[in-house]
């Protein structure tokens, strides 16, 4: 990713955060909980689910927790 593209992504992310929760962390968890755990569920391809468990859903939870944990990926 070029420096310009990286800077644009950071700017877009900041704009999204301001729009969605005023840029503050207080309600970020509330919003992310909704985005990854509520809303209409439309199952994707079979590879994305095993035994009725949506792997994409589980994967999203693991990645997002990894970001918040010490030493997590950013």
């Amino acid at each position: 990713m070029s420096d310009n593209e990286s800077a644009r992504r950071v700017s877009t992310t900041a704009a999204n955060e301001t729009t969605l929760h005023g840029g503050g962390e207080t309600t970020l968890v509330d919003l992310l909980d909704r985005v990854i755990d509520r809303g209409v569920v439309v199952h994707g391809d079979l590879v994305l689910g095993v035994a009725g468990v949506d792997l994409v859903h589980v994967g999203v939870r693991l990645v997002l927790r990894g970001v918040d944990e010490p030493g997590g990926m950013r």
Partner: protein
Amino acid sequence: MIHLYALTDDPPAVGGLTGVDDALLRVMDAGDLHAVISEHDQPPRATRDRALAHAAATLAVCRIGHAAPVRYGAQHADETALRAALDERAARLRASVDRVAGHLEVVVRFDGDVAPVEPVTASADAASPDDPAEQSVPAGRAYLEDRLRQQRAEEAVRLHAADALREATAALDAWAAEVTEHDGPQGPERCLLVVTKDADAVAAAAQELAGEDHRIVVGGPWPPYTFV
């Protein structure tokens, strides 16, 4: 690879709107409903920033259109696969759209614990450790009884917080088509389903309450995830 944001029965003008990885949104005809999607060469890996991008795009769509938000993570190989997935649950998806389209969600909760004014004490029938009868109780049973008392105390605190939140934010209810109360990731919360054109005013009214009662935290307006 197709990333799905929202379902609608009235295709919104999404020209120029972007979503995950700044991909342009477009509307795909899916029979009875329409899907708001973006297309990607590779499946976008799940990250916090992409989840927020999904949320922002979904909010933009719900504000301008008659849409129900889709949970982050719904990806499909192509339009055929997406149409098949939508056809499988067409009736339920249609019902979701009918329920929430044209609405947004405003959320209120308390920040931090809200303890009862009177501390919740152990059950009156809890025996003293010095009680000979208590000394004869097997350790396992004593542990379970103690855990039960602890759970009851925690439940009492939770119910108190929920009651206090309802009382503190009751003034908002008149604006809402529906109000639901449940335990969120940070404690009891009240979610209000409000007509889109009123959503900003409701959020502003909630912020006014928060200005008077600093326990209150306000979220939204957001897509009505809780109500689908």
